[in-house]
């Protein structure tokens, strides 16, 4: 039995190598970048990764943040499959995204992943790499498959950002660019100029970032992407005291703090409209100022996690916020 599995692994390895050879001519050879070898070797959420030999050519992306990062860097042709996508991509990448094959609506199993013969799996959540998910990082490494987790989603002490900043997102852009031996200059310049153009609301408004839940609200807390976006547009998060990215909260505190606006996360399985209905049907929250006056801001679920869409999410919310007329 061990011998058989070894043969299978060997065959898989050969297949990967062959398919790699087959596709190499199709892929435009990346121009040798200026990045040093050190930039391609680093510690990712506690796992050493090394991409100094060659850039990955067959990538599986799990969650929207990873798919969109590659599309933003013009690396869509490296994606052999996507999984567990959170929603549609923005219009700019629509044509490119339509070409991608979907491996799994939810987290793929190890066999589904191996079947696509990837050389890199890029995941938006650390938990996507588990035995009942895509496989543990060390197992995949043993099969010659590199793994990378969006650093903003690292959970370990020392790896999780103490308070997420745009510098963390820009560092991820740089890291991914160096993994693929491509340049990040254009994308970073774009992100920075878009960020600089976002107006900051001066009215000192308070906000609740309502992500999901009905009996217990699940909300954006003090150290993750929701906090970063709210800081950027000039909203004061009523749940900022909880040192988590997201947290389960309670309605009593929400009613007590009576936020000026409510940010609703819009997901296909839990739409913004459904959340409005939850707020309106609960007699305690129906009397909140934001609910009575329909002061809602809407953010798509896929844009609510840290990544290349965070800047545009903030820009979009700032536009919605400027339109709100508070007497």
């Amino acid at each position, binding site marked *: 039995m061990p011998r058989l599995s070894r043969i299978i692994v060997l065959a898989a390895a050969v297949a990967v190598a062959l398919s790699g050879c087959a596709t190499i001519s199709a892929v435009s050879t990346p121009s040798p970048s200026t990045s040093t070898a050190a930039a391609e070797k680093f510690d990712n959420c506690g796992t050493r990764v090394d991409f100094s030999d060659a850039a990955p050519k067959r990538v599986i992306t799990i969650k929207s943040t990873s798919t969109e990062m590659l599309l933003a860097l013009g690396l869509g042709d490296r994606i052999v499959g996507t999984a567990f996508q*959170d929603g549609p991509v923005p219009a700019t990448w629509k044509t490119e995204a339509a070409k991608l094959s979907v491996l799994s*609506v*939810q987290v793929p199993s190890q066999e589904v992943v191996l079947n696509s013969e990837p050389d890199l799996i890029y995941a938006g959540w650390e938990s996507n790499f588990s035995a009942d998910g895509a496989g543990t990082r060390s197992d995949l490494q043993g099969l010659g498959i590199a793994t990378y987790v969006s650093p903003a989603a690292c959970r370990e002490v020392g790896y999780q950002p103490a308070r997420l900043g745009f510098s963390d997102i820009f560092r991820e852009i740089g890291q991914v660019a160096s993994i693929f031996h491509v340049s990040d200059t254009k994308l970073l310049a774009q992100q920075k100029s878009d960020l600089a153009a976002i107006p900051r609301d001066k009215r000192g408004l308070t906000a609740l970032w309502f*992500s*999901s*839940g*009905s*009996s*217990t609200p*699940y909300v954006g807390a003090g150290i993750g992407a929701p906090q970063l976006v709210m800081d950027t547009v000039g909203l004061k998060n009523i*749940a900022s*005291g*909880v040192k988590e990215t997201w*947290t*389960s*909260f*309670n*309605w*009593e*505190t929400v*009613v*007590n703090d*009576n936020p000026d606006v409510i940010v609703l996360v819009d*997901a*296909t*399985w*839990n739409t913004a409209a459904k959340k409005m209905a939850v707020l309106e049907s*609960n*007699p*305690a*929250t129906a*009397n*909140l100022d934001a609910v009575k006056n329909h002061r809602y801001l809407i953010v798509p*679920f896929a844009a609510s996690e840290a990544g290349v869409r965070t800047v545009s999410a903030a820009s979009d919310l700032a536009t919605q916020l400027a339109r709100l007329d508070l007497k």
Partner: protein
Amino acid sequence: MQARRAGRVATAGVVLALVLVLSITFAITIGPSNVTPVEVWGSVLHHLGVGDGQLSLLRDGIVWQLRLPRVLTAAAVGAGLAISGAVMQALTRNPLADPYLLGLSSGASLGAVAVLLLGIAVLLPVAAFLGAMLALGLTLLLASSLGRITPSRTVLAGIAVSALASAVTSLVIFWTVTGDSYREILGWLLGSLSGARWPEVAIAFAAIVIAGLPIMLSGRILDAFAFGDTSAAALGINVNSTRWILLAATALLTGAMVSVSGSIGFVGLILPHAVRLLVGPRHRALLPLSAIVGAIFLIWADTAARSVFEPRELPVGIVTAIIGAPIFAILLTRRRSEV
């Protein structure tokens, strides 16, 4: 001896009823927002038609729409679970029995999950009750197919039915959950009262009146059952139909409680044991006192769940298990000879 025990039961009853009223009165003054106790009571009295409330609409909502319905639901659920536990322990003559034995909880959960996730258009408590009854029916069918229905056969059949219902529940969740929507179901599966509003209060109290009171009044019958089916029959009780009626009433009670709070463990298991230590095993005293103690216990467990980690909340099922498991261990060692 008899008189002394009766006196003790009466005293315990009066004291515990008082503690229950005080618990409700004080539990509603505790919470993450800074409404003062005087304001809280003023708001409640105002809604009851006494005095005028000085609270703003929102802060009044905190008291009248969030805290009070939640505390009252906790009281009713705690009472219902404790009664169900005591009855199950009597009917199955098994000290380890709880309301969730015989597949009742898993069946109720399956019914509720079917409504929540598959969108079947039945009211949640109805679905939970139907699920509980279906599981109970299957359990008794399986137990009877083994021969005469004995307590141990019933319990074993219940384990099998429970496992099946849990597996189907997991299957439904696995197939229907997308994105982060599992969160909606997670708190409910762990047992939580955070969704309790006035409709939930109505459901829980209706179940207490419709199923809980008749059970509490059948203490004499349950005392007979405690000595075995033969002695129960000798006392002129129709053993089979009585057992069926009591089991169905327990299923109704448990189903209603699961539908408003999910499965909250340990309340039905440990509290009847604790009350037995206090007043002895006779059900005429045991059932009403267990109900009161269950209500008090769950009120405070839920108050802890919603205030200890504020502004976050803990599913109350975690609190009852953390408090309940050590108490259960202590009770086990004290009652070593009986287990």
